[in-house]
């Protein structure tokens, strides 16, 4: 492309000239440096709100570590002293104190770490398991009946039953909680993937691919999976608020994490009784939960749009 400035100060006859014939140039094929993930990132970065959310979430995560480091009290060394109960936030207690006079700042940030970790572990875990089994479920016809019954079985038995049995017979800890949540949630991811696989399995290009002898795993990973990325990402992002919500309900029922791992859900369920008189007890953890959930909601939508190949130029 020529810009107007290129022509400034040039004489009339300098504007046109002959191009010499070059066999190499003539043979050159137009090359687009398209890369799938590159486009995803590019498209994602175009969405300012989503980028802001990503930064916000990362900042929150990083800050939860910094916060614990700079806080005046150490979570493990908290001392209960009821004479200091319900002190409003001040320069000594940045988030105030709880009903036992313990610093609230370190409790909230510690719990934030636990909650984020749990939500991410569950989201990633259920995606991995769900995608693998979803692909198999969708592609291998003979397994459809089996998986469908398994889905019905797990989906129709209330999760409270599983959680109670697990808590009674295995115990309560971070990893038990994470694994049991993954074990229950992967099916809905698998179900979505399966429905998508159904749609793409018998398209002509896959038929051709199969005729050419492409191995099964390659058909799955290269031909089908890219179409699913947007769905998977959206589902993953939305599972994060879901996990936090479910965890708080389970904590309320006594089926949540162990007492040495305070989560935001646990804190929220505990301060319910005080928040009218001491709103700060509710505001801090609830804001953090909301920030996490909203960030993921917006990021998920943006990433899911960005991941859809149809939106790529």
């Amino acid at each position, binding site marked *: 492309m020529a810009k107007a400035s290129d022509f400034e100060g040039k004489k009339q006859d300098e504007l046109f000239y002959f191009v010499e014939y070059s066999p190499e140039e003539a043979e050159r094929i137009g090359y687009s440096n398209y890369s799938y993930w590159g486009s995803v990132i590019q498209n994602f970065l175009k969405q300012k709100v989503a980028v802001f959310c990503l930064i916000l979430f990362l900042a929150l995560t990083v800050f939860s570590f910094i916060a614990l480091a700079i806080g005046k009290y150490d979570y493990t060394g908290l001392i209960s002293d009821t004479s200091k109960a319900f002190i409003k936030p001040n320069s000594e207690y940045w988030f105030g104190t709880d009903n036992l006079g313990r610093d609230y700042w370190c409790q909230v940030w510690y719990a934030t770490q636990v909650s984020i970790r749990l939500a991410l572990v569950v989201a990633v875990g259920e995606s991995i398991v769900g995608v693998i089994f979803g692909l198999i479920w969708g592609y291998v016809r003979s397994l459809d009946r089996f998986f469908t*019954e398994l889905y*019905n079985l797990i989906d*129709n*038995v*209330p999760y*409270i039953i599983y959680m109670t049995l697990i808590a009674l017979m295995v115990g309560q800890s971070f990893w038990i909680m994470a694994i049991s949540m993954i074990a229950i949630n992967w099916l809905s991811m698998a179900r979505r993937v399966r429905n998508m696989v159904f749609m793409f399995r018998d398209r002509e290009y896959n038929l051709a691919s199969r005729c050419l002898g492409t191995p099964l795993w390659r058909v799955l990973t290269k031909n089908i999976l890219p179409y699913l990325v947007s769905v998977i990402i959206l589902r993953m992002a939305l599972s994060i608020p879901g996990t936090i919500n479910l965890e708080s*309900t389970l904590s309320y029922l006594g089926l949540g994490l162990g007492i040495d791992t305070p989560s935001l859900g646990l804190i929220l369920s505990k301060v319910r009784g005080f928040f009218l008189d001491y709103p700060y007890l509710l505001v801090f953890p609830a804001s953090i939960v909301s920030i996490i959930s*909203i960030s993921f909601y917006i990021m998920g939508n943006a990433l899911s749009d960005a991941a859809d190949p149809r939106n790529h130029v």
Partner: protein
Amino acid sequence: MLKYTVKRLLQSLVTIFLIATAVFLMMRCLPTDYYFTEEQLMKFTDQQKTAALEAAGLTDPIPTQLIKFYNDLLHLDFGTSRRIQNGAPVVKVIGKKFGVSMRLGLTASAISLVLGVLMGILQAAFKDKVFDWIGTAYTVFVNAVPSLVSYSLVLVLGSKYLGFPTLYSTRNVSASSVLPITCLSLASIAGYALWTRRYMVDELTRDYIKLARVKGLSSREIMFKHVLRNAMVPMVQYIPQSILLTVGGSLLMERFFSVPGMGPLLTDAIQRYDLNVVQTLVILYAVLGIVGVFLGDVLMMVVDPRITLTGKEEAR
């Protein structure tokens, strides 16, 4: 259609059978000492314990118990409750609570369906305007805040500042149902609004809408006659299921407002090792879920005549 329904019914029976078996076996995994209350454990000798377990048929080998369970199921005999309400038939225990949950659940569903869809329509109509933003903010916020917190807020604010009764009371059903129904509706309004908006916005970019505009149809006509009708198709499939599931009661809400409904029954029954109640409840929930999916398919067919269930590919 009839043939399809029968086939579907048979499949559902198999599913329910599997679920019943699974729950039966799961509950038998618990040590039998959970069968007793703390006070009984304290006072009963081992001999008395064994006698009580034998009387309840819990010492039989699992296959024997399972066969008896199937036999009872075939005769639609769900047994009697042991701890929830000693000796009362399970059907009676559940029946009473079912009605309460159903009333609240159906009211809440109706309200949230109307409000939610309306909100979704308005959001779609004023896409990227202030109302859309407010609606989206509401949706996101309701989903982001754990229900434990939002219910507490409704409870305290509603009773303290608006003067509604806090606890559900049979003497004053309408006033005392306001807060529980609000709680139930909060999330489902957001859900309906979210999906209505999403599907309508998708639909708005379709070519036939452009054509309709070109033909000079009014905005209102386009919205209701074309966009909404088509946007409802993917949504109606989930409506029966979500209505039926609200009938199952809400654990947290019913706990908070002392609503004598189904919600807390399952956890109570599990914790008290009331096996018959647990089994019956799970079967009931499974039936509700399966019926809901079936009704959803039928409803989808009604709304969109192009869809047939009897075709070779099942509509999912």
